[in-house]
């Protein structure tokens, strides 16, 4: 079974530019989550999809962040325009609806805004 795939693995962009991160969850996992870890801090929730519907986006920092999940399959997270404080590792995780097997995380996208 393929795991959760994220790309790019690393991205370095200048302040003010746009970046789009992509996540391909495990096939059949209806739950998809985006998390972010800023250096030295905890992994923080950004938002949650069930299939193509946003269930909770209370963790999104501001309106510069936009997430979509087309057709309930892969998801994208766009940051526009990027700011220095957006730097960190962005993780995607997916799970079955019952979540009894926990979440499967991707390896993350390390975003550096300079």
């Amino acid at each position, binding site marked *: 079974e393929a795991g959760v795939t994220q790309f790019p693995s690393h991205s370095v962009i200048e302040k003010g530019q746009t970046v789009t991160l992509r996540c391909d969850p495990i096939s059949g996992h209806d739950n998809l989550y985006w998390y972010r870890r800023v250096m030295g801090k905890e992994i923080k929730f950004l938002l949650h999809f069930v299939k193509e519907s946003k*269930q909770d986006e209370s963790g999104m920092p501001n309106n510069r962040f936009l997430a979509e999940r087309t057709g309930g399959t892969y998801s994208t997270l766009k940051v526009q325009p990027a700011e220095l404080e957006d730097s960190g590792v962005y993780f995607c995780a997916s799970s079955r609806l019952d979540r009894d097997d*926990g979440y499967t995380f991707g390896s993350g996208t390390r975003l550096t805004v300079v």
Partner: protein
Amino acid sequence: QQPVQSPQAVILREGEDAVINCSSSKALYSVHWYRQKHGEAPIFLMILLKGGEQKGHDKISASFNEKKQQSSLYLTASQLSYSGTYFCGTENRRGGADGLTFGKGTHLIIQP
């Protein structure tokens, strides 16, 4: 509210035991444990559900004390491969839309 993990870091020799604690000020539905190695994805270890549980596989086990809203992860006869950062993630209710709330992590270093 973020669960509190302790200790922040542990250095052990191979073969020694470790206990990592996770506590919350809110009633919990479940506690998840993950291990992350540098630059890799966090790996799911186990989930403990409301009602109080103990689980284990191989030499890694965990308990969940529902009354105290605490969970502990036990690593016995540690191996070099156990090194990494351990995170607990908590849910306050089943099917909560806001996912897991993670602790700050416990860094575990196993030395030969």
